[in-house]
């Protein structure tokens, strides 16, 4: 972590000396400063958490219901399906989904419930296999791990939806968890899940797909909740610290927004253009 801090400090020094040498892309100054501030806040609260300060996170119903969903699948003797979106491993939402897959797999391993993971990208396949395998080993159930349950289907969006829908209709799983990047296939899968009566938990940062998930699923993780999920599920103080830092960054942004609104209003109603100079600079 020290090297990260050092990295930012060195770069910031570079910005302060920008007039002497054209080494830094000055047009990116604002973006860079935002990034440094955000990362510093996260870093500070991680350190706070490390020093033993207690941190609290509000209850997220969708995540609290993961256990309920797996429990229901166990009671009914049916499988649990986890879909980490349709994008590749370089998509941060896919990674967030895979981070949660570990927790889900630990629960299915403990309850001895089948966990099926259809994936749309081959890079995600090997990662998902590793994540599930680790969960089964860590909980002491390596014998029940079935590599064939984590399956590459196709990287074509609608062919993937067709295949998953076919699996859902034929096998009628009791629980379906969809966490990652989803596009038009979101409604196709979620409606089929709803039709077969499965308990459904979904989460994505794709704003255009959220209404479909809300209409068809029992619980939905909206936007940033998806990225907070791993911290919530693991309860790791360091991860919780990073969430706190993120919240403070959000507050800072709200202050900026309020300033923008105030500046705009001051010009409209009082004719004070001075307030805008900072915004124009940014």
């Amino acid at each position, binding site marked *: 972590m020290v090297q990260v801090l050092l990295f930012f400090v060195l770069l910031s020094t570079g910005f302060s000396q920008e007039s002497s040498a054209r080494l830094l892309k000055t047009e990116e100054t604002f973006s860079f400063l935002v990034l440094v501030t955000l990362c510093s806040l996260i870093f500070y609260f991680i350190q706070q958490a490390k020093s033993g300060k207690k941190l609290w996170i509000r209850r997220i119903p969708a995540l609290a219901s993961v256990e309920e969903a797996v429990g229901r699948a166990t009671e009914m003797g049916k499988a649990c399906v986890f879909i980490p979106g349709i*994008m590749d491993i370089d998509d941060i939402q896919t990674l967030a989904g895979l981070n949660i897959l570990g927790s889900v797999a630990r629960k299915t391993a403990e309850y001895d419930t089948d966990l099926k993971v259809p994936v749309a990208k081959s890079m995600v396949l090997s990662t998902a296999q590793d994540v599930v395998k680790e969960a089964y080993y860590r909980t002491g159930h390596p014998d029940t791990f079935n590599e064939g349950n984590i399956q590459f289907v196709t990287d074509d969006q609608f062919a993937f939806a067709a295949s998953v829908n076919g699996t859902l209709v034929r096998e009628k799983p009791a629980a379906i968890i969809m966490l990652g990047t989803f596009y*038009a296939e979101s409604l196709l899968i979620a409606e089929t899940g709803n039709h077969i009566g499965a308990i459904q938990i979904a989460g994505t940062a794709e704003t255009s797909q959220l209404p479909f998930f809300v209409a068809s699923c029992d619980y939905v993780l909206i936007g940033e909740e998806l990225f907070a999920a791993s911290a919530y599920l693991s309860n790791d103080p360091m991860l919780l610290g990073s969430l706190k830092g993120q919240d403070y960054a959000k507050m800072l942004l709200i202050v900026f927004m309020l300033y923008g609104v105030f500046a705009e209003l001051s010009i409209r109603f009082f004719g004070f253009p001075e307030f805008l100079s900072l915004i124009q600079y940014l």
Partner: protein
Amino acid sequence: MLEFLKNLDRRYIFVLIALAVAIPLIMPLGLPLTPGPEAKSMYKVVDSLEPGSKLVLSFDYDPASKAELHPMSEAIIHHAFRKKLKVYAISLYPAGPSMATNAFANMSKDKEVVYGKDYINLGFYYGPNTGLNQVAVFSQDIVNAFPVDERKKPVGSYEIMSGFKSLKDADAVISISAGDPGVPAYVSVANAIHNIKVGAGVTAVSAPRFYAYMDSGQIFGLLGGLRGAAEYETLEKIKGKGLSGMDAQSMAHLVIILLIILSNIIYIIEKKD
């Protein structure tokens, strides 16, 4: 009756929707349409380009969303050919170039336009990271990304390519996009970093997301779904597939509204009981 409606099999709903869509397609109603401000803004920018200006059209969709997005592409190409603009087709989707080939073939009929002089189909360029890398490459050096065009000939041999080295040389870029990669990549890289004018044509489902980009001036125009295509066709004064599909969409919306009303009546009766 109430029991039947309460547990209405969704197949009845499917039949109703199928009829609502099919009947107006067979017997068009010819309902008039008033273009919205987003489509007007898109049309105005393209219309303001001088003859010989460079318009890049990114075909970021495949057959799945062809019905919704292809009419947009065709209307824009029609407008560009009429205005004697140079049209460059690129794609972030593997199936995009064949969409471009089809749109150019349909729109170049009966028009004095020559491939390689008035328009070109540069093809598909693969790259990771949901289009960001591809658009970054296009913004720096487009010839490096597309050494040969869709007809497998060196792009340097075409007249249209002189003076067109990167997206920065384009007078406007319009991404007709079914999702990612598509408009977000052009907004994040071409517009935010290189100040290139970007317009968007998207599916109706994803259109709400892009109103924020329109409001902040990151895109100069927005065509949402079949209605967007119909609006552009109205402005361009042509009768394309967008306008002919609007009757079907009207009836489908009406059926859904009636279904919602029905479901609420059932809910109220149930509550009273």
